C-alpha cells in the first residue's frame, strides 16, 4: 500500500495517522483512569478498615427496619416463623425463649413506632426476603385506630418513597438499585454521613433508641429501658405519657379493618401460613378505650373475625394482669417471659 515513490498512498496516510493519534490518546487516558481508580479504591479500603470506629449509617427510614432487614437476610432462609407487629409485640416476644422444635427458627420482625400502613408493606418485604413458613401477626385494637391518620400517612409516605424499601419490595428503578448497591459495596458511599461529620455521631442518640442491640433472632432486648428511659424518673414520665397517649383520639375505622383483612388474604395467597394473635392487654388499656369494655370487645371481635375470614388461624387472648406490663400497653420482662411461653404453646411448639 505505498505509492510509486515509496511514500504512503494518500488514502492510507490519514488512517495511519488516525490510528497513531488514537494510540497516543489511549496511552494518555489509561494511566489517568488507572491511577484515579486506584486512588478511589485505596480510599474505600481505608474507610472500610476504619468502619468499626464510624457510626452505622441509616439509609432505611428507621434504624430498626434497616437492622432487622439486614439480620433477616443474614438469617434467610433459616427463619421459618416470623413475628410481625408494632411496639407491643416487639416488647412482648423473645424468640430466644421459644423452643426450636415445632416452630423452627423464629425471628421477631416487629417494628416499634410504625403505623399499620408501614407494617403492611414491611410484612410483604419480610415475606419476599425470607419466605417463612409461618407469619404471626400480633396486634391489639390500636391497629384499627385512625386517630392520628395524618401523622401516620407521613410516616407511611416516607417509608414508601425510601429507595431501599423500593428495592426490597421489588419495585425499585435503576437508580434505586444503584443506590442500594453503592450502600452495600462502597464504603465511601455507605459511611458518607459519618465522613462528612467526623466530630459528632449525629445518629448516636437515635441509634440508642431506635437501633438497640438485637439478639441473633432479632429480639429488641433493650426495648423497655431504651424506649421508656434510663432513669426511674424518665421511666415514670414515659409511662405516664404512654398511658395518656396510648389510645388518644381513638376512633374505630372500617377502612383499617379492611386493610388488615386484605394483608392477611394477600399473605395467604403467597402460600404462607398466617396466624393472628390478638395481643393481651392490661386493664389500664381497656379503661383507656373511649367506649370502655364493650367497645374493646367489639373491636377485638371484629379483628378476629376479619383475620379468620381471610384465612388466618386466630389465637385469642384477653386481659392480663398489670404485673406483666411496663405501661398500659407494653410488656415488661416478666410479661415477655410469660408471653413467649404462652405463644409457644398456642402455636403448638414442643418444649
Amino acid at each position, binding site marked *: 500500500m505505498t505509492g510509486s515513490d515509496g511514500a504512503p498512498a494518500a488514502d492510507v496516510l490519514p488512517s495511519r495517522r488516525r490510528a497513531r493519534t488514537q494510540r497516543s490518546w489511549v496511552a494518555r487516558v489509561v*494511566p489517568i483512569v*488507572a491511577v484515579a481508580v486506584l486512588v478511589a479504591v485505596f480510599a*474505600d479500603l481505608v474507610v472500610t478498615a476504619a468502619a468499626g470506629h464510624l457510626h452505622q449509617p441509616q439509609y432505611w427510614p428507621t434504624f430498626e427496619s434497616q437492622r432487622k432487614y439486614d439480620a433477616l437476610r443474614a438469617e434467610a432462609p433459616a427463619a421459618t416463623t416470623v413475628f410481625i407487629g408494632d411496639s407491643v409485640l416487639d416488647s412482648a416476644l423473645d424468640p430466644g425463649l421459644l423452643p426450636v422444635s415445632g416452630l423452627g427458627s423464629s425471628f421477631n420482625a416487629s417494628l416499634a413506632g410504625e403505623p399499620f400502613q408501614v407494617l403492611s408493606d414491611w410484612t410483604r418485604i419480610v415475606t419476599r426476603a425470607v419466605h417463612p413458613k409461618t407469619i404471626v401477626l400480633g396486634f391489639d385494637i390500636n391497629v384499627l385506630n385512625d386517630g392520628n391518620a395524618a401523622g401516620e400517612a407521613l410516616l407511611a409516605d416516607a417509608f414508601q418513597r425510601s429507595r431501599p424499601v423500593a428495592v426490597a419490595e421489588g419495585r425499585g428503578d435503576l437508580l434505586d438499585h444503584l443506590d442500594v448497591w453503592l450502600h452495600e459495596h462502597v464504603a465511601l458511599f455507605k459511611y458518607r454521613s459519618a465522613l462528612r461529620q467526623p466530630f459528632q455521631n449525629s445518629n448516636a442518640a437515635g441509634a440508642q433508641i431506635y437501633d438497640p442491640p438485637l439478639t441473633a433472632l432479632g429480639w429488641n432486648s433493650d426495648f423497655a429501658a431504651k424506649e421508656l428511659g434510663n432513669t426511674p424518673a424518665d421511666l415514670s414520665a414515659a409511662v405516664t405519657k404512654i398511658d395518656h397517649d396510648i389510645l388518644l383520639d381513638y376512633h374505630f375505622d372500617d377502612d383499617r379493618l379492611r386493610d388488615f383483612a386484605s394483608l392477611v388474604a394477600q399473605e395467604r395467597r403467597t402460600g404462607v401460613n398466617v396466624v393472628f394473635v390478638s395481643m393481651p392487654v392490661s386493664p389500664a388499656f381497656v379503661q383507656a378505650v373511649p367506649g370502655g369494655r364493650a367497645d374493646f370487645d367489639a373491636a377485638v371481635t371484629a379483628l378476629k373475625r376479619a383475620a379468620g375470614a381471610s384465612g388466618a388461624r386466630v389465637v385469642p387472648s384477653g386481659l392480663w394482669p398489670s404485673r406483666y406490663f411496663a405501661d398500659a400497653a407494653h410488656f415488661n420482662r416478666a410479661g415477655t417471659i410469660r408471653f413467649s411461653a404462652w405463644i409457644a404453646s398456642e402455636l403448638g411448639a414442643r418444649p
Partner: protein
Amino acid sequence: MTFNSLQYAVFLPAVLLVYWSVSHRLQNLLLLVASYFFYATFGWRFVGLLLLSTVTDYTVGRVLEHTEDEPRRKLVFACSLVVNLGVLGFFKYYNFFSDEGTRAFGHLGIHLAPPVLRVLLPVGISFYTFHGISYAFDVFRRRIEPCRDPVAFAVFVAFFPQLVAGPIGRAHIQLPQIVHERTRPDATQVGRAVSLILLGLLKKVAIADLLAPYVDSNFANPSAQGSISLLLGAYAFALQIYGDFSGYSDIARGSAWLLGVNLPENFNQPYLSRSITEFWRRWHISLSSWLRDYLYVPLGGNRKGRWNTYRNLMLTMLIGGLWHGAATTFVVWGGLHGLYLSVERRFLGGETRDAERAWSWRTDLVPALITFQFVCLAWVFFRAPSAAGAVHYLAGIVKPRAGSVDRNFLLTLLVAGVVTIAIDAAQRVTLDHTFLTRLRPWSQGLVYGLMGSAVLIAAGGTPVPFIYFRF
C-alpha cells in the same frame, strides 16, 4: 434532570454518541429534540412557553429583516419585548407586584383585591427570555443578520447545557456556531471538557451541597446562633453560591465543548477581585455584560455626567437584583451593589477598573479581603428569607452574642474555603480553567481519584437542585 444527577450522566453520553455520528443538519435536529426533552424533565407544561418565546423572536427577526421603516421596526421589536417581558413578568413577578402593590395602596387607605393566582415559576425562564431579547435587540440594531434557519434558532434559544441557568448566550457569538458545521473535539479538547465537568461537579456536590445544611440552619434561625457562627454562615453562603453556580457553569461549558460549541465564560475567580467593579467583571459575567450592553449603555452609561452615571448604575443593579427574583431581598442586594459601584466610581475612579492587572499577594490581598466583606454583606440580603430577616441576621453579627460553633461546620467551611481558593489561584496563575489537564497523567489520575472520592462522599440520595434554577 439536573447536571449532578445520574440521569444526566446517562443522557449526555447518549446524546454525544448519536450526535457525532450524524450530519450537521441532523445534529441540530437532535440537539433540539434533546434540549426540549431536557427541559420537559423539569415540567413538560412549560415547554409551550419556551416554544412561544422561540417562535416570537424568530418571527420578529424575519420581519425586521424585511422592514426598513424605522417606526415599524420599533413596533416589531416592541412585540418581542412585550412577549418576553410579559411572560417573564407574569410568571416571575405577578405575585410580588400584586402583594407589594396591595400593601402600598393599603397604606394610602385604598384596599385592592387583585386576583390571587398560584403561579409556578418555569425553570430557566429568566435565561431564555434574555436570550431572545438580546437576539431581537441585536437584529433591531442591525448588529447581526437575522437567523433564517428555524431549527438552528430554536437550538440557540433552547441549547440544553445553558437552557436552565445560563451562561446567557449572545446571538452574534453563539448562533454562527449552531448554524455552521461544528468541528469534532480532539482528544485534548475532550480531556479539557471532561476536566471542567469534573471540577464543576466537585464544586457543586462537595462544596456547595455540603455547606448548604449549615447555611440553611443559620439563616432559618439566626437567634439560636452566636455572632461567630452567623459570621461564618455568611462566608459559607458566599462559598456555597459560588460553588453552586460556577460549578453549574463549568458543567454547562464542558458539556457544550463536547458538542463542539463554545459557551461564554461566566466566572473568573470573582472572590480574588480587588474592587466591586472588578467583582462584576468576574461574577456571572454573562449577566453583568448583558445588563451593561442592553440596559446600562442604552440608559446612557457614563456618558451623561456623574449623577446620571450613578443613577444608571443604581438602576442597572436594582433591575439586576430584581432579575434574580421577585423579592425585596434581591432588590436590596442589587441596590447595595449599585451603591458600592457608585461609591467606588466617586472615590476610587479608574483604579477599580483594571480587572486584568496581575494579582499580587503582597498588594492585593487586603483590597480583596475588604471587597469580599462587602460582597458577603450583600449576600446576607440575597440569602435571607426577608429584608427584615437579613437585618436581624446582621444585627446578630454586630452585637456580640456568645454561642458555640459546630466543629463539623468549621471543618467543612475550612476545607471548602481552601479548595475554592486553591482552584481559583491555580486558574489565576495558569490563566486556564482546565489547568488540571496540564498535569502529568499520574498527577491527573491522583487528583481525579481524590475528586471522585470526595464527590462519592458528598453525594446524597437525591441530587440537590442548583440555586440558580430558581431564577
